[in-house]
C-alpha cells in the first residue's frame, strides 16, 4: 500500500498586525477541511506551539515594530523553507508604519502621557515588554521573503491560490482582480 504523503508543515504568526489576515485565512470556509488533509500547523495563533520548527511554509502577517517582532521573524526565516509575507502591514508597514511620521518619543508621549482621558499617565517601562523600534519596518527589511501577498486583508481566494500552488509545488498565478492593496 502506498504510504500516506507527509503533510506540509505550516507556521503562521502575526507581528504588528490586527489578525485580519489570519481571519482571512479562516475565511476559506469549508476549503479548510481540504487544507487540513494536506497540512499540519506548527507555531500559529491557531495552535499553542511556542516555536516554528522544521516548517515547509511560514506565513507572516504584520509589520516589524518591536524587538520581539524581529526575533520571531528571524526564527521563522531560520525554520521555514518558504517564507510568505501577507497583508499590507507585512509588505509595506501598513497602518502601523504611519507612526513613522513621528518620533518614537512623540508617539509614546501622545499615547501614554499627554493623550486625552488618561489617568495616572505613565509610559510603560516593564522590562518584560519588548522594546519598540524607532521606526516600523516592512518584513523584507529584516529577512528575505520568498512570496508576497497584498491586501488588507488579502482575500481568501488569493490566499487559497497561494497555498494550493505552493503545496502543489507550482508558481502561484494571480489575476488582476485578485491583486488588491486595500
Amino acid at each position, binding site marked *: 500500500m502506498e504510504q500516506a504523503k507527509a503533510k506540509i508543515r505550516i507556521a503562521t504568526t502575526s507581528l504588528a498586525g490586527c489578525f485580519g489576515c489570519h481571519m482571512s485565512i479562516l475565511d476559506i470556509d469549508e476549503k479548510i477541511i481540504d487544507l487540513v488533509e494536506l497540512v499540519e500547523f506548527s507555531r500559529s495563533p491557531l495552535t499553542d506551539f511556542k516555536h516554528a520548527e522544521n516548517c515547509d511554509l511560514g506565513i507572516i502577517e504584520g509589520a516589524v515594530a518591536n524587538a520581539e517582532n524581529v526575533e520571531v521573524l528571524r526564527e521563522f526565516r531560520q525554520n521555514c523553507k518558504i517564507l510568505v509575507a501577507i497583508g499590507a502591514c507585512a509588505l509595506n508597514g501598513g497602518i502601523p508604519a504611519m507612526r513613522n511620521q513621528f518620533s518614537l518619543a512623540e508617539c509614546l508621549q501622545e499615547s501614554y502621557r499627554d493623550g486625552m482621558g488618561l489617568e495616572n499617565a505613565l509610559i510603560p517601562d516593564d522590562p518584560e515588554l519588548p522594546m519598540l523600534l524607532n521606526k516600523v519596518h516592512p518584513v523584507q527589511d529584516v529577512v528575505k521573503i520568498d512570496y508576497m501577498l497584498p491586501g488588507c486583508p488579502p482575500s481568501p481566494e488569493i490566499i487559497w491560490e497561494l497555498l494550493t500552488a505552493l503545496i502543489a509545488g507550482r508558481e502561484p498565478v494571480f489575476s*488582476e482582480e485578485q*491583486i488588491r492593496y486595500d
Partner: protein
Amino acid sequence: MPEFKLDNHSVSFLEGQTIMQAALEAGLYIPHLCFHPEFKPHGSCRVCIVHTNGRYVSSCTTLAEQGAQVISEQAEVQRQRRNLLEMLFIEGNHVCPSCEKSGSCTLQSVAEYCGMLSPTLPFQFPQRKVDASHPDTLLDFNRCILCELCVRASREVDHKSVFAISGRGIQAHLVVDSADGRLVNSLFASTDRAASVCPVGVILPKHKGFVEPIGQRRFDLIPISRQQEKAD
C-alpha cells in the same frame, strides 16, 4: 489610413497621433499615469513604455509610424513598468487601506494591472505634511507621484497656475502658489479642473470621503484596463 501593430492588433492612426492616442481610440489599453487625453502629453512617469524600433519609448510621446511593431503586453515590458511603479510607491507614503481614494486610484489600479504584488525596494517613509487649510479641498502630499496633471489643469484649463513642482530629483515636490504656501490663500477653487484631475489621493474633496463605499468604487467594479478613459 496608416497602420501599426500593437502586440497582435492592427491599429490605424491619423498622421501626428501618438502610439497612446491611437491605441486608446482603438480601445486598446496601455497602462499610464501622467497621460490624460485632455492634456498635452508629459512623458514623465514612463509607465506607458513600449518596445518599438529596437528601443523602449514612452508611448504617450512617441508618434505612431506606418508599419511599426509595438510591443506592450510582454513580460519584460511589464517588469520594467513594475520597477517604475515600485519606485513611485516607495518614494511616497501610499497606505492604501487608510486612503479614501482607494478603489478609484489610478496608481493602485495600474499597479494591479501590471501585476505588482508589492514593492521590493526599501521604503523611504518621507516626512510630508497635509494641507487641510482649504474649506472644501484637502491636500495630502504623501501620495503625490509628480504626474503634474494638476499643474497642467490649473495652468491650461483654469488659467491660475495654482500648482507647480519645486525641487529636483528625490527632492521634487508639489507646491501651491500662495504667500504662505497654503491652499486656502491661493486662487484655487473646488470647482477648478485641477480639483478633480488628481489620479491619486492628493487633491481630495472634503466632506464626502466615504459617500461611495469601499468595494463599489470605480476600479473596484471594473479594472482600469477595461475602462475607457473618461473625464474624472
